[in-house]
């Protein structure tokens, strides 16, 4: 074992520990701490062992009744488990070891660097979604875009990937100038090309206009290059107008009408950072409230603002999609940095517009393109979840909100997605704690520095195997080539039970219903196969029988 861990583990093992988990029988056994796992095993065949990644632990609480210690482990996937440990010293040792191991600072000590797959990798997920491949698809539809290597050493924009799609007529020198005018160097790049009418969605960081209204001709040129002659486009600023105004004082700002006469700006108010983190914390607290009072529940649910955030994000994405599909206009989306609300909007708009994103592979590709490559800082955002005691710095459930919105659309179009809810829950879990390297790091640059493809296994390598795919496939799926417009009425948006009530109530009856559904569909398929083979057999018999051919 690596020295760092040995120092942190004060007591590697304790016997006679009692484990309480939601909806599972109590287990008594031996608790072991390893560098990456908390393991509890009863050494009996019929009880399930607990293997908990330290990185999944959000916070712990300890209290003593006499010399019996109780440790409550609160996980990032919102599960809570209790450990009863006899002996104050053991208990304190275990608690402090868990605390230390679950808050390791160094990325290179994370489990993905130590994990060796126990399965055969059929397709290496690190190579499944390369930008050059995605660009080939684009090239088959249009020649108006090119793949630029201007950021190949990450110097122009540290949060962008080495390859980005930009208008063909805009050269790298222009891009370099535009990068200085956009927050974090995030110059406008292609996010989505709408095959149906050739309209596009771009994303960027905010323009650095500052208080004196700085302008950048190259920036104007770049985005105007995406407009058809005589057409107007929409700029969707994910900040409320007053927030965008305030950003000017810090050197940021928004596109002034005078300088962008062909563009119409729309402001939407999507919350950011600690506001979102607070929202998650309050929501989870409401779900765990034991008072059983309806008034209290509804008022806490309301006060958490979680559903408001879902509605706001979804509405903005619908708006972007509507501009593209119904208005036949191109769209530029940005907020402040362009790494959070911007990505929520651009990725959800694609789910609405592009049937390809509703397949399992397509969705993986979307997460890869619009989140990982696009520089969403997963490691910062997902460092802590709803039970964190420390004051949030960069943590925010931006990705979880995106998944929640996808779940809302899935609920409204239950037959239009190739994947099921389990897939979304799985992505939530792995974004926060995983044996796979996919969600490590904050940008393509960081992932390259960490040599993740060489040193870790990709989540997609694991997911894209038949046995996993089967579990994640929606049995109701019927490819639907149309644009799907979700309802954003409050009545239509539900609390995502599969995540937020997962550990509060048994899902047995709902799981049974799912199995029943699968059974109905499987049985139908089975019969179809049988009937088809009988039909062939019958046809054969008929041709063999000469009498049948006499009129």
């Amino acid at each position: 074992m690596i020295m760092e861990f040995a120092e942190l583990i004060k007591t590697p093992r304790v016997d006679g520990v009692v484990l309480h988990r939601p909806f599972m029988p109590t287990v008594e056994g031996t608790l072991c701490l390893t560098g990456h796992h908390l393991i509890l095993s009863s050494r009996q065949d019929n009880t399930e062992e607990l293997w908990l990644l330290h990185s999944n632990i959000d916070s712990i609480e300890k209290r003593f009744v006499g010399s019996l210690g109780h440790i409550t482990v609160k996980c990032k996937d919102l599960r809570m488990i209790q450990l009863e440990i006899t002996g104050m010293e053991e208990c304190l040792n275990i608690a402090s070891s868990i605390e230390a191991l679950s808050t390791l600072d160094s990325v290179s000590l994370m489990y993905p660097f130590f994990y060796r797959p126990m399965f055969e990798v059929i397709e290496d997920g690190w190579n499944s979604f390369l930008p050059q491949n995605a660009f080939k698809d684009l090239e088959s539809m249009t020649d108006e875009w090119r793949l630029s290597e201007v950021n190949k050493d990450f110097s122009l924009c540290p949060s962008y990937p080495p390859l980005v799609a930009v208008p063909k007529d805009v050269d790298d020198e222009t891009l370099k100038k535009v990068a200085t005018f956009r927050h974090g160097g995030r110059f406008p790049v292609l996010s989505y090309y709408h095959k149906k009418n050739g309209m596009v969605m771009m994303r960027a960081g905010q323009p650095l206009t500052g208080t004196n209204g700085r302008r950048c001709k190259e920036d104007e040129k770049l985005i105007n290059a995406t407009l058809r002659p005589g057409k107007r486009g929409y700029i969707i600023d994910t900040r409320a107008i007053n927030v965008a105004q305030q950003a000017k004082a810090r050197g940021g700002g928004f596109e002034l009408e005078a300088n962008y006469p062909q563009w119409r700006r729309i402001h939407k108010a999507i919350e950011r950072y600690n506001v979102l983190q607070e929202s998650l914390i309050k929501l989870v607290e409401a779900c765990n409230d034991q008072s059983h009072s309806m008034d209290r529940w509804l008022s806490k649910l309301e006060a958490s603002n979680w559903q408001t955030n879902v509605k706001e994000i979804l509405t903005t994405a619908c708006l972007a999609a509507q501009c593209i599909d119904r208005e036949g206009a191109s769209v530029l989306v940005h907020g402040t940095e362009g790494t959070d609300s911007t990505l929520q909007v651009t990725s959800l708009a694609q789910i609405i517009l592009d049937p390809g994103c509703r397949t399992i592979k397509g969705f993986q590709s979307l997460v890869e393109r619009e989140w990982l490559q696009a520089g969403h800082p997963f490691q910062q955002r997902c460092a802590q979840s709803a039970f964190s005691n420390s004051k949030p710095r960069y943590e925010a459930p931006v990705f979880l909100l995106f998944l929640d919105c996808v779940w809302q659309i899935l609920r409204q179009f239950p037959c239009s997605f190739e994947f099921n809810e389990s897939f979304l829950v799985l992505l939530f879990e792995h974004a926060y704690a995983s044996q796979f390297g996919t969600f490590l790091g904050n940008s393509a640059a960081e992932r390259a520095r960490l040599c993740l493809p060489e040193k870790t296994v990709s989540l997609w390598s694991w997911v894209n195997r038949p046995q996993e795919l089967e579990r994640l496939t929606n049995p109701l799926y019927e490819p639907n080539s149309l644009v799907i417009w979700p309802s954003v009425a409050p009545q239509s948006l539900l609390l995502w039970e599969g995540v937020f009530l997962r550990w509060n109530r048994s899902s047995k009856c709902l799981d049974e219903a799912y199995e029943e559904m699968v059974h109905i569909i499987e049985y139908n398929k089975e019969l179809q196969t049988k009937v088809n083979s009988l039909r062939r057999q019958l046809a054969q018999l008929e041709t063999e029988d000469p009498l049948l051919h006499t009129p």
Partner: protein
Amino acid sequence: MEHIRLPKVENVKLLDRISHRRRRVGTLYLTATHTIFVESEAGVRNETWVLHSLVCSVDKLAATPSGCPLLIHCKNFQVLHFIISKEQECHDIHLSLQRLSQPESYDELYCFAYKPNVDEKERRQEWDFLDLKADYSRMGLPNSLWKLSPVNQHYKVSDTYPADLFVPESATPPVIVGSSKFRSRGRFPALSYYCKDNHAAICRSSQPLSGFSARCLEDEQMLEAILRSNPRSDFMYVVDTRPKLNAIANRAAGKGYENEDNYSNIKFQFVGIENIHVMRNSQQKMLEVCELRSPSMSDFLEGLESSGWMKHIKAVLDAGIFIAKAVAEEGTSVLVHCSDGWDRTSQVCSVACVLLDPYYRTLRGFMVLIEKDWVSFGHRFSHRCKHLVGDPKEVSPIIDQLLECVWQLMEQFPCAFEFNERFLIAIHNHVYSCQFGNFIGNNQRERIELRVHERTHSLWSYLWANRTDYTNPLYRPNHSQTQGLLRASTSPYSFKFWKGLYNRFDHGMHPRQSVEDYLRAIQEETQQLEEQLTSHTQKISQLEQEQECSDSCKATTFDKSPTVWAPGNNLSLANTPQDYTGGFITGSPCQPKGPDSILLPKSTNQISDASFSNGSDQESGIADLSCRSPLSEDSTRDPDSDEAAYSAA
């Protein structure tokens, strides 16, 4: 007909409830039974039919430059916002509708005019479809513990009770009559449900007239007799479904609740369900929230909370669970009452029955349950549902709450019910529609006087005839979830808002694809496949046996492609963008593309309008599964109120 001041108005606008910019122009007709709006857009013949008896209120709003608005609220939660150009016409329609929607006598009700094409013999058979005695014998009654008592024949003891009642074997007529004199409206304790496995029973009554200290020996004997009818139990529960304060207040009026000291071996329990007035106001507030145009999430959640509606639903379900557990787990009998014993008592007994007995979770069983606990035990349907013009304080959505409790349970136990949400909504609709005779009047005696069984049709056989529409594809009689007691959760987060009922006509809010319809289509196909499997197998063996078979098999080719399951190509829940902008992008009304329905002069013998016309919006979501006429009694012909298009400003 004399009430119709104006039978037809042209150039009327019907506004979309969500987005007033979307409007349809057409002609408004008033008939003896319906208001009909026929859209007159070229190539479009959308029709919206509204039964007068479903109209809850008609309001004429202040005239605007574009015309005079007329707002119609329906008891099935449909809201129609018309603009009539001429004030005088609006005035005439308003007055006519006000009169037409408020019948003054039973004879004016639609059920007495409703004559579907059914002969008299069939009509009489409709009323034999359900038999309450058969349900009691299903429970194992009569037996040595419970007997059918003739005491209320001719409704002499309690005129709001049914004629046939089960009472404990040891309860003599003097005890029953004595007890009835000590109970509001003479509603003495009688059996509602008997569990033959453990002899525990649910009985119901009205409150005792105990005042501050009154006692009644016969009433005490009556409870004693109920307790003794459960040989294995040494006590029983008396559940007063009212909040304690209300019950105490009743004592001042000479009513009240049982004193544990006077009744041997009872455990007395309040469960705190609010009265009809609180429920009426609560639903009103909740509906106002549903009607908000583009509410924020906070508007909605705050409004829902302050309406108190979900809290009341939880209270009813909690009470039902308490009783079901007492019966199933403790084997203890329960006497349930409220004040008169026809509102909260009916709710709670029914909820307990649904939880306890899988039979009541079947299509037929649920009909029997409503017939038993509500119709026969004298829930005052005509008062509560305002079938006639009358005291508005008597109106209350008590039956709505039962249906919602069942819906909440269906959400928790998706495989446990033979019927689906549509079934509950259909019942809801017809409790109010007055199309069938079942819910006319306030008790059995009144229905006999009205000769309902001789003059009207029964909802139950109508629903049964259409049962394929109302069947839950996930239900299997032998499924583990179907068996035994349902252990429901009443944690607040387990309750959902029932948009399927309260926003029933806001099609845009509902899921655009229905898993249930998909599965039902699959099951229908499966059935056909099973038949083909049998016939193919037979033919093959036939062919193999007699090679000279001359019977051409070509006729039976398998003509179903795997995707044929979509029921028609109806795209009536057209999927188009909503107003996501808050009016930023101005919209122009688009041409809703054309269903070709024909205006039918409404003949009264037409069973309400099954077919939705086909929309054909190619832009809409899906090869649509969800939209074959969601409800056959649904009178809306409008396939896509969600239709809209936006153009750049």
